[in-house]
C-alpha cells in the first residue's frame, strides 16, 4: 500500500498548490488604479486624500445596467512604521462599504454608503465613478512624534460574494471582475 501514501502526498501537494495559486492568479487589478495618495498632517488632525481611476469593465457595466448591485469595501488605515511591519503602531483605521446600483425608473446611478445608508444620485455612471474615486477623510490623530514615520494603506476591495450566486464562480475567473486595488503611502 505504499502507493497510497505517495498518492496522499501528491494529492496534498495538488490541493495546496490549487488553494494558494488561485488567489494569486487573480490578484492583479486591471480596472481600478490609485492615481494619487496624500497624507496631510498638522498639529491637530490628519487628512487623508486619495484619487482613484475608478473605471469599470464592460462586464461590470453590463451587470450594473442589468440591475446588479456592486459592492466595494474601502479601508483606510494609518500607522506609525516600525522596523518590523507586524509591530507597526496603528494610528487610525476607517472602513466603509459602498454600493453602486442603477435605478431604472429614474434612469440614474446611486451610490450608497452602507454604513450610514445615505445615498447620492448621479445621472451618469462617470459622475458616480468620479464620486467614488475621490476619497477624503479628516480625522483627529493620536499623538505622533515628529520623528515617527507614518504610513497609510488604502484597500478598495470589490465584494464578489455579494454578486448573484450564479455569477460568483465566474467572477473569480473573469478579469472583468477584477475591480479591487490597494496602495500604500510610505513615509519619506
Amino acid at each position, binding site marked *: 500500500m505504499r502507493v*497510497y501514501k505517495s498518492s496522499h502526498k501528491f494529492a496534498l501537494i495538488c490541493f495546496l498548490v490549487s488553494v494558494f495559486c488561485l488567489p494569486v492568479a487573480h490578484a492583479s487589478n486591471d480596472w481600478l488604479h490609485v492615481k494619487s495618495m496624500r497624507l496631510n498632517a498638522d498639529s491637530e488632525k490628519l487628512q487623508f486624500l486619495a484619487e482613484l481611476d475608478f473605471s469599470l469593465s464592460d462586464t461590470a457595466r453590463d451587470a450594473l445596467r442589468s440591475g446588479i448591485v456592486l459592492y466595494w469595501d474601502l479601508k483606510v488605515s494609518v500607522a506609525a512604521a516600525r522596523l518590523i511591519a507586524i509591530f507597526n503602531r496603528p494610528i487610525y483605521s476607517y472602513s466603509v462599504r459602498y454600493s453602486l446600483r442603477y435605478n*431604472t*425608473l429614474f434612469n440614474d446611478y446611486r451610490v450608497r454608503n452602507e454604513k450610514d445608508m445615505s445615498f447620492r444620485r448621479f445621472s451618469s455612471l462617470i459622475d458616480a465613478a468620479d464620486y467614488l474615486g475621490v476619497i477624503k477623510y479628516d480625522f483627529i490623530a493620536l499623538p505622533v512624534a515628529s520623528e515617527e514615520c507614518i504610513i497609510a494603506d488604502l484597500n478598495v476591495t470589490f465584494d*464578489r460574494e455579494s454578486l448573484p*450566486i450564479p455569477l460568483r464562480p465566474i467572477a473569480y475567473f473573469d478579469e472583468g471582475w477584477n475591480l479591487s486595488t490597494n496602495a500604500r503611502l510610505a513615509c519619506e
Partner: protein
Amino acid sequence: MRIRIPFGISALLLLAFIFLSLQLMSSALQEASPLSGMYSWLLLSNTVATIILLLLVGVNAFSLVRRLRKKEAGSRLNTRIVLLFIVLSLVPAGVVFYYSLQFLNQSIDGWFNVEIDAAMDDALELSHASLEQRIQWNLKQSQQISERLNGKTLAEVTFALDQVRESTTASEITLLGKKGDIIAFSGLIASDILPSLSVAPLFLQVLQGKDHVKLESINDELVVQALVAIAVDEGYYLQIIYPIPERINDLTDSVEFAYVRFQEMTYLRHSLKVSFSLVLSLVLLVSLLTSISVAFISAREIIAPVRDLVRGTKAVAAGFYEQPLPVKRQDDLGFLVESFNDMVQQISLSRDAARISSMEIEQQRAYLEALLSSLTSGVLSFDADLNIRKANHGANIILHIQVMRYFGLSLSSLARGRADLQELVDVVQPLLEKSDEIWQRNIRIDTPDGRRELLCQGSPLFSTEGGYIGAVVVFDDITDLIQAQKNEAWAEVARRLAHEIKNPLTPIQLAAERLQHKLKDKLGDEDQQLLVRSIRTIVQQVEALKFMVDDFSVYAQSGRKEVENIDLRALVQEVASLYDADPKLSVLIQEERNIPSVSADVVTIRQVLHNLFKNACEAMLGAGEITIKIQSVVQGRANYVRLAIYDTGFGVDLTQAKEIFEPYVSHKDKGTGLGLAIAKKIIEEHGGTIRLDSQYKEGAGFIILFPAVMHLD
C-alpha cells in the same frame, strides 16, 4: 510506525463530505438561504474534495494498471470488475447528464423568450407613460394654481397657501423667493415646517422662465415635484409636491422590480447555465467517482479470496502446507477457500504419508546399499536392456574398475577400457541375454593383482507382474579359496612325502655306504671305481631327496611362530648386506623415511628375503644388479609397507607367470619349485600379498605388501 489509511475509508469519508457539501450547495443556490454567502466556499471545497477523490481513484487505477502489467494474481479480474462498474455507471449517468443539461438549457432559455421580454418592456413603458401622464397633469394643476395667485400681494399669497393646498391633491406647497429662499410653507403634516425636497438642483432651470416638473421619491414613496413661477410683485416661485396615489405607487414599484429582476435574470442567463452545468457536472463526476470507488472497493473485496487462493497455491507449490487460508466469507468464494483448505490438508497428509513411505524406502535402500557395500562379493544389476544399473563396492574391488562410471551402459563397455575384462564380458553377456534361468560359471580374469578366479552366478529379475525387468550377477573372488585348497593339498602331499619318502632315505644311504664299505676291498679296480661312483650317486640323490623333503616340510608347516613388530627396512639391509659382499653383485636399496613397522616373524620373513635374493642371483647367473624399493602406501583404507625387488636376470615368461607361485613349478634346472610358493605362503600367513610386477621388463620383479602397524598418537 507508518499509519496507513485504507482507500475504502478515505474514499467513503471524502464521498460523505462531498455529498454533504453538495447538499449544502444546493441549499445555498437559493438567494434567501443563509448558506448563500458560503456558496463559493462550498463550491471550492466540493471541487477540491472531488479532485482529491479523483486523484485517489487515479492512483488506484495506476496501481491496478501496474499490477496488470506485472501480471499479478487477480489483477485482470479486478480490471474487468472495475471496467464493468464504470461502464454500468457511466452510460446511465451520462444519458441522465446529457438530457438534464439539455432540459436545463431549454428551460432557462424558455424563461427569456421574446414575448416575455417585450411584455416586460411594455409594462415598464406603460408604467412610465402612466407616471408621465400624472406628472403632466400635476404640472397643469400647478400652472392653474399659479394663475390663480397671479396679481396678489405676497401677504395674500402667503395666507392662501393652505387654502390652495387643501383645494388640490398637493401634499406640500412652498413659496420661494427669487434666490430660492423659503418664504412660506404649507404641508399636510402640521409639524412640518420645511419642504421635503430641496429645490436647489432645479432652481436655475426655473429662473430661465421654464416651469419644471419631476418625479422624485421621498422615503421610498413616489412624488411629483413641480416648480412654477407666480407673478407676484417682483416674482416668486411655488414648489408643489404631489403624492402619487398608493395604488399607482405600488404598481410602479412592482413593475420596476419585475423589470429589474427580469433584466438581472437575462444578464445572468449564461451564468445560470454555466453555474447549473457546473453543479450538474460536479454531481456527475462525483457519481462516477463514487461508482468507481465502489468498484475498486467491491473488486478488492471480491478479489481478496482469489488472491488468497493464488497465494495459497504458490505456498503449496513451494511446499508449505501448514498455514490454512482465512475463510472471511460464507459465500461461494468462501466455500472455494474452504475446499482449497481441505484439499491442501489432504495433500499435506498424503505428502506426509509419502514422505514417511519414502523415508522407509530410503532406509531400506540405504540398508541394502550398506549390505551390498559390506559384501565382499561383487554385485552387478542390469536393467531390461541389459545396461548396468547398479554395482556395489565389492564389484569395484574385484574388477579393479569404478563400475559406477558405466551405469546406463552395456556390460561390453567395461571391456573397452579394460581388455582383461573381455573374457568376463564374453562369458556373462550371452548368459544374460538368455535371461530365463539361473546360471553359474567360473571365470578367470587378469587384474593388476594377478590372475583371479571368479565364481559368477547370474539370475534374471522379474517384477511382481511377471515382466522381465533385468538381471543380477553376483561374483566372488575365489582365487584365495582355491589357493588355500591347493596349499592344503600340497601340505598334505608334503606331509606324506616327509613321512613316506624321508624315512626310508637314511637306511638307503646307510645301506649304500655299508655296501661300499664291504665290497671295497673285494672288487677289482675297475669294479671298485664303478661301485664308488654308483654309491656316490645314490648318496647324492638321497641327499637331494632329503633336501626336497625338507622343503616340502617347510611348506607344510602352518602358522607363524614368533610374531613381533619388526623394522622391515633393517631386515632387508641385513639380508642384502650378505649378497652385496659378492663383488659381482650390486644391491641398491631405495627407501622412504618413516617406514612403519610390520608385525611378522623375523625368521620366516628373513627366509622369504633369502629365497627372493637367491632366485635373483640364480636368474642373473651370479652377476647383476638387485634393486630394492621400500615404500609406505595406502590402498583402500589400509596402510601397507610395499617392498619391491627387481633383478636384471632373464626374467619371467609372462605365459608362465600365472603359475609362478604354484608349488613344484620351477624354471630352473635344479630348483624344487617350492621357493616362491613358500615365500607366498609365508607372506600370506602374515596378511600380505606377493605378485609379479608385469610392468618391469628388464628382469624379474616382485612386489610384496605387508600390513603396516600404525601407532595411535
